[in-house]
């Protein structure tokens, strides 16, 4: 992991199209501004994890169900 030190008001770039600026540094929170092209998704980590976990869960439902009930779907 690349680690850089920045103060409020300072910024850095990722590639040619993404700029990240540290807007405010509080005692237990920092405020960050991100300039990126519309096609780049910017997601908080917990939302990103939940999205990918939900997609995996939807894809795994059939496999889980057949493991749980065998091929039998009349278990209602």
């Amino acid at each position, binding site marked *: 992991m690349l680690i850089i030190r920045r103060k409020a008001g300072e910024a850095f770039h990722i590639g040619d199209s993404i700029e990240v600026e540290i807007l405010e540094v509080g005692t237990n929170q920092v405020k960050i501004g991100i300039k990126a092209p519309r096609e780049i998704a910017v997601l908080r980590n*917990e*939302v990103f*994890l*939940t*999205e*990918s*976990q*939900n*997609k*995996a*869960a*939807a894809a*795994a*439902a*059939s*496999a*889980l*169900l057949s*493991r*749980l*009930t065998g091929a039998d*779907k009349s*278990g*209602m």
Partner: protein
Amino acid sequence: MPQADTQQFGLIEYVEDDVIEFPVGLPAFEQETSFLLITPLKTKPLVFLQSLGRSELCFVTLPLEVVDPNYQLSVSAEDSKILSPAGQTLTAVGQADGVQVECLAIISLTGSRPTANLLAPLVINRATRRAVQAIRLDNTYSHQHPVEELVC
């Protein structure tokens, strides 16, 4: 009685009171707002969350208290507003005060092992049947908590 066509359970009948509304959908499935809770006796305590809009979309879940009896629920202010517009506190079903909520953890496969998402439990207001996937802002719980002994 309305019927729902489902890939996993075939054609099933339900009553309107069985329908759970997610006003903002679920992350990655924002368009799906109406679901049915199905609890077949055979696979208890598993609960299936079947989409009414997409017959193939069904989540396998477990009651949160089954996965972790000591789970400490934490719901953001934004999500609380969806569950309890009047701003009452959320409490587990069976307790006297506040809005009674039922919590479910979505099960997935990590590799081939079943895991529960404890980072973002489904929280359902029992009275209004409105629900939200309450993503925690802290990192107290894993999004891939192993539940092998509970599922298979």
